């Protein structure tokens, strides 16, 4: 039963010009528009990890462990690109002026035990500079102890922290760092949420109070949840394939490096499709009005996509600064964040956190929907 419904629903959707048009071709068209709009602004050289120019202000003028670490990191070793190029400044104002004139990407101010980081923009440079301080603070107690008890081994300890930074650079970072890439990720997120239309339309087609074909399902000796599961899987397949096609188109035809291996991207976008499908099923399970079933997914998709940066990439950062919870519950923002984090910073905690939240949303959405649908024994025509 499940298999037959799945196969027929696939056929049904592949012959539906609205599904083919909106879910498959429209994202490709929009990707092309984005490409011609700002494709050339996207830095896509995966091997070119550029050295970060960073300012350093030491208010105490004494040699510090952090200063030694920065010095170590600015040395070239084993033909590898050095992580930072340190420029010392005498005051915070002088460093800020250098940053504003884009001579440096950020600067540190070390005042006793306190190290402050100042960065100009978001992106991998800002993250790297923050990461260096975070990593240093993690290792601080170790370095302090070594300095006090075994000063002869201090250089080794600093080398260890420095190597840690190298490992972070080489293995953890993604391969694309352009903020403009967010538009393509927001496009994938929008495309994924389009699948909410598919699932609401499918639920509509299975409810007797909505459509005549729904009556056929309701009078048939078929387990409703099983039938809906068949439909949902068909919708998920269509949307996942559509997203994979979009990734192939962007990455291999438009040649925009999306910063992660293809399989990894497909898995993330498939999770995004599941998120859209789950949202659609949830909407369809408690809305019984035919017009609302069209309007709500539309508003949901466009609203979430806008807030994830489809039209203006900095909206997500603004929301993150003012109301971060919105970014944690907006499925499109989660998907963009997940893809962006993967592309820019690699598989960080944030990346896994996004995946976990999305996974919980999918499972939670389907679970709540199934409760709603199980309760709806009668059609209420």
């Amino acid at each position: 039963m499940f298999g037959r419904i799945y196969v027929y629903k696939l056929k049904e959707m592949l012959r539906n010009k609205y599904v083919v048009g909106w879910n498959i071709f429209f994202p490709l068209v929009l990707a092309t528009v984005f490409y011609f709009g700002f494709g050339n602004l996207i830095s896509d050289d995966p091997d070119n990890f550029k050295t970060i120019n960073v300012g350093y202000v030491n208010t105490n003028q004494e040699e510090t462990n952090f200063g030694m670490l920065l010095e170590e990191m600015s040395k070239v070793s084993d033909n590898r690109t050095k992580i930072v190029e340190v420029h010392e400044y005498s005051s915070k104002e002088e460093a800020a002026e250098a940053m504003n004139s884009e001579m440096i990407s950020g600067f540190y101010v070390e005042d006793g035990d306190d190290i402050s980081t100042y960065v100009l923009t978001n992106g991998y440079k800002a993250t790297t500079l923050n990461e260096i301080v975070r990593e240093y603070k993690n290792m601080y107690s170790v370095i302090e102890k070594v300095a006090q008890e075994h000063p002869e081994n201090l250089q080794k300890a600093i080398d260890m922290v420095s190597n840690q930074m190298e490992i972070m650079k080489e293995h953890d970072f993604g391969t694309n760092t352009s903020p403009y890439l967010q538009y393509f990720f927001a496009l994938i997120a929008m495309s994924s949420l389009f699948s909410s239309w598919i699932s609401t339309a499918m639920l509509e087609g299975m409810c007797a109070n909505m459509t005549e074909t729904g009556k056929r399902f309701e009078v048939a000796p078929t387990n409703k949840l099983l039938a809906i599961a068949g439909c949902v899987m068909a919708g998920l397949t269509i949307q996942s394939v559509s997203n994979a096609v979009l990734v192939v188109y962007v990455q291999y035809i438009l040649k925009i490096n999306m910063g992660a291996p293809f399989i990894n991207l497909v898995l993330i976008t498939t999770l995004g499709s599941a998120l859209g499908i789950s949202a659609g099923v949830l909407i369809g399970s408690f809305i019984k009005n035919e017009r609302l079933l069209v309007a709500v997914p539309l508003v949901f998709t466009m609203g979430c996509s806008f807030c994830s940066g489809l039209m203006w990439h900095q909206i997500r950062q603004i929301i993150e600064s003012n109301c971060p919870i919105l970014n944690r519950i907006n499925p499109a923002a989660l998907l963009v964040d997940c893809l962006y984090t993967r592309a820019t910073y690699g598989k960080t905690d944030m990346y896994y956190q996004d995946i976990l939240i999305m996974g919980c949303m999918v499972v939670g959405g389907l679970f709540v929907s199934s409760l709603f649908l199980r309760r709806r024994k009668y059609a209420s025509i």
Partner: protein
Amino acid sequence: MSQCVVEIENLVKRYGDKVAVDHFSLNVNEGEILGLLGPNGSGKTTTINCLLSLLKYDKGIVTIFDKEMKPEAYDIKSQIGVVMQNVAVVETLTVYENVDFFCGLYIKDKATRKKYVEDALEFTGLTEYKKYLPKKLSGGLLRRLNIACGIAHKPKLIIFDEPTVAVDPQSRNAILEGIRKMNRDGATIIYTSHYMEEVEELCTRVVIMDHGKNVANGTSQELKSSLINRETIRVGLPDKSDKIIAGIKEINHVYKVKEDGDDLVIKCDGGDHNLVHILSYLNDNNVPFGHVSTELPTLNDVFLEITGKELRD
């Protein structure tokens, strides 16, 4: 005695203050074609929806094949076929795929289903259109596809909810003939309509609904027999003197005579040869007359007498 396939007892369905079905009871016996007749809004479709457990009702018991009907009564549902009032097919699937898809909700075995689908297509005359999409079909063929989707799994009880609405006469006749054939093959049929001629022609028993109630129940003949007026004779009569009218009133079974323009309308409460007797009287008394027509009562007359309004108000 034939088995009772459907039993509805005291069914009540309310929409707020409005009572759509009001203590409605009905029995349908095996092998019957039961006509459920009533004007629009009389509660026919609501009753059918309650019968199919599509609607939750406020009171009453619905039993089908000796088991209480519930939404999860899959064993009962598997023996029921429903032909909806509106066409219920998937626009993007071909004729064959539509029938196969809906038949597949009932029949799991692939080989059996294939045979059943082919039988249904042949039965409805759609074999040559099996690769067509529904939008390429005419209105009549679309109705036939609707029927094929509802009956392909060879159900024992088939419910037709006004299947001939907006259908041309040729297709209507084909549909009615098909229903007779299904009945001959053993299916019990419930047929709702507000076309009394169809019901009269097709159904072995008729139930008339009005305001959600069962207002009449019997064969067409039984229902018409219950009327006082059994025959209406209209005669074009230039001379309508009191003497002639009084003479006609004296004829056996004539219970009412009234003038209607140039015509005299004579109502009879029984008898077999009323027209012959009236014409003999006119001849015997050398009364000239023009056109003559006679009308037997219809179900509409039954309905008119019971409820005081026409079926298609």
